[in-house]
């Protein structure tokens, strides 16, 4: 059935939570009411990346991109755009509103510097329709691998492409496959790590929600390459939409015979099952993940033996991240040379980042390796809200570190990030401005790892807790001389002594903030002062006498009666009674209250 117009509506988690399903329902209803439901097709699709502007709707053939669409807007869109052909300008994505014609999405600054490889189909196809995936060359790479290539030539192609694991550590994917392929064994496994746990990271979820077939196709290719007939996708239960779409996709692939026995009439058979995780951060670590699939409590074990030798159920296993898999079909179709032409010398291809924090365009971006942080923050991200100053960006979540403003022009790739004390991680990128306290940030991430430590090894279980206690003391104004050195000492020991990646990297946020913002730590410890004005215990609220009109509003709002004074004369805050709730400051109409 050919339609004259397609309406694509983002159904990623972000847009779903801002009511895109209600919009779709209303739209369908309006199309029927206006008798154009046979002319216009409504398509649900994956994440466009512009989550901050969601729900996003794109209407083809015009390519008009509407943002912040509400169910109430649907009637106008149908009657104006679909019936009269007039673009609803007030809803257009600001940057595309050029003259009378809505420009295509690709030309706006947010997309212009991006290169979408892993996200190639997100926001383009309907993830619940295998035909649309096939229309965009889906399963052609699998067909090519099975009918024209040997398992070894598949591995060689991946090796040559220079693809490195997108889950964080950056191990060359081809080598992982090579190790597993060389192992003898009647049973091998292909696993997919979809246990995305870094706070603020959501690229794996978006790939699975927007393009689940790419992961299924890639895992099947991996199965062929290493000689496995069974795959497992380990995904957290907190990703219900991704789980649902994966289930639909696996079912469709089975119906088409793209999973199952004798795929493409060859001897090769492969199937995939889903295993749900309960959301423990440590289960993103490969050995813990496999222990969890086996049905045990998710705890890591020592390596070696590496999974390629003894992995899931003690059989040779490869485990790759969602985004890594999403790159595989393109590499086989376009060739290793094409892929390795993107990126830097040692980091090939692109990387998806979930950009959040103090940035205008919160969302998902995919950039060629080697793009600078400045380009991500200012060109793609649209800069920092309210004209504030960029202070640092945190990459790699609780395992990573921060990049200070002085290094904003560093080209981002695996090795550069390591050398400046951070890491790629799975790709969370949190932007911080002058209002963020770096000690507080370090404390936040450490609190996360303290909570998520599985408790198996003491350096991680006890060490991170002790570090956290020191940080808590510092932020409460009880820091002592020598605390910084104590933190550094503990950190080094935990890094060396912890059993798995979680503990080994847990001190990184502290070490990197000490490295670049030692002065802030010192201000907290020596001067009992929080330069960014975040740490409550170190702040005092004060009324600026010149600005105070003596209206008494603050005194009325104060929950502990700490403010007193005479009407029409400056009021005063009793700092001993003050609980620093900030109610006075938010209510003052004359900006006469400051915190310092």
């Amino acid at each position, binding site marked *: 059935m*050919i*339609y*004259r117009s397609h309406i694509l509506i983002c159904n990623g988690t972000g847009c779903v939570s801002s009511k895109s399903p209600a919009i779709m329902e209303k739209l369908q209803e309006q199309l029927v009411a206006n008798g154009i439901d046979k*002319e216009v097709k409504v398509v649900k699709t994956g994440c466009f990346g512009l989550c901050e502007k969601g729900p996003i709707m794109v209407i083809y053939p015009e390519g008009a991109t509407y943002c912040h669409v509400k169910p109430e807007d649907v009637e106008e869109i149908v009657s104006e755009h679909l*019936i009269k*052909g007039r673009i609803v300008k007030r809803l257009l994505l600001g940057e595309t509103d050029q003259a009378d014609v809505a420009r295509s999405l690709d030309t706006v600054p947010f997309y212009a510097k991006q290169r979408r490889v892993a996200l190639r189909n997100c926001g*383009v196809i309907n993830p619940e329709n295998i*035909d649309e995936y*096939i229309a965009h060359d889906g399963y*052609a790479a699998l067909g090519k691998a099975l009918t024209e290539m040997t398992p070894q030539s598949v591995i060689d192609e991946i090796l040559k492409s220079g693809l490195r694991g997108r889950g964080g550590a950056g191990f060359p994917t081809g080598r992982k496959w090579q190790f597993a392929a060389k192992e003898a064994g009647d049973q091998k496994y292909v696993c997919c790590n979809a246990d995305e746990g870094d706070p603020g990271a959501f690229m794996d979820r978006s790939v699975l929600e927007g393009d689940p077939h790419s992961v299924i196709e890639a895992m099947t290719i991996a199965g062929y390459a290493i000689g496995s007939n069974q795959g497992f996708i380990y995904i957290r239960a907190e990703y219900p939409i991704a789980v649902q779409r994966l289930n639909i996709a696996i079912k469709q692939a089975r119906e088409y015979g793209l999973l199952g026995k004798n795929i493409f009439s060859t001897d090769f058979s492969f199937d995939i099952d889903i295993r749900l995780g309960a959301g423990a951060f440590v289960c993103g670590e490969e050995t813990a993940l496999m222990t969890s699939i086996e049905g045990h409590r998710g705890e890591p074990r020592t390596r070696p033996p590496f999974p390629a030798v003894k992995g899931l159920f003690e059989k040779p296993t490869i485990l790759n991240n969602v985004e890594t898999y999403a790159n595989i079909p393109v590499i086989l179709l376009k060739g290793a040379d094409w892929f390795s032409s993107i990126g830097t010398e040692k980091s090939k291809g692109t990387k998806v980042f979930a950009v959040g924090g103090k940035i205008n365009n919160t969302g998902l971006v995919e950039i060629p390796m080697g793009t600078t942080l400045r380009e991500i923050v200012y060109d793609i991200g649209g800069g920092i809200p309210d004209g504030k100053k960029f202070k640092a960006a945190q990459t790699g979540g609780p395992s990573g570190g921060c990049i200070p403003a002085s290094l904003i022009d560093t080209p981002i790739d695996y090795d550069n990030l390591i050398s400046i004390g951070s890491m790629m991680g799975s790709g969370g990128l949190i932007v911080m401005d002058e209002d963020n306290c770096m000690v507080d940030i370090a404390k936040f991430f450490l609190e996360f790892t303290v909570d998520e430590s599985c408790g198996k090894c003491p350096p991680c279980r006890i060490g991170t807790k002790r570090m956290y206690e020191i940080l808590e003391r510092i932020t409460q104004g009880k820091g002592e001389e020598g605390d910084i050195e104590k933190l550094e000492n503990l950190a080094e020991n935990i890094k060396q002594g912890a059993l798995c990646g979680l503990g080994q990297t847990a001190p990184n946020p502290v070490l990197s903030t000490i490295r670049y913002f030692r002065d802030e730590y010192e201000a907290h410890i020596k001067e009992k002062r929080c330069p960014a004005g975040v740490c409550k215990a170190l702040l005092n609220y004060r009324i600026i006498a010149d600005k105070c009109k003596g209206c008494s509003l603050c005194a009325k709002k104060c929950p502990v009666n700490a403010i007193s004074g005479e009407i029409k004369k400056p009021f005063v805050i009793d700092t001993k009674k003050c609980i620093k709730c900030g109610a006075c400051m938010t209510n003052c109409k004359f900006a006469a209250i400051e915190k310092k």
Partner: protein
Amino acid sequence: MKSLEELKAIREKALKEVSIRDNENKTRVLVGMATCGIAAGARPVMNAFVDELAKRNIQNVTVSMTGCIGICRLEPIAEVFEANGEKTTYVKLDAEKARRIVAEHLVNQKPVTEFTIGAVGN
């Protein structure tokens, strides 16, 4: 899935359905769909364009709607924009004429002069 040919067949069929979302280097047919156009019968004209293009498996042409261009007495109006920016304006259309435009102009690159604004308008 038995063979690459089978995959290719699915691909080609699916591609027809999604090609509308790729608007690079395409010829655009804009049908005037303001009140004047609709009242004069623009909807069957537009449907005829869509239907005829689909029947002939033409994928590099999109059909969309536009508002009133100001010569309401000549509605239904459709404009054909070539990828190189050239424009042909057809007026007083009906479904039959739309099908001829597809066959002669969009397939054979020969504008149907007798339906153009230059021929009909005066």
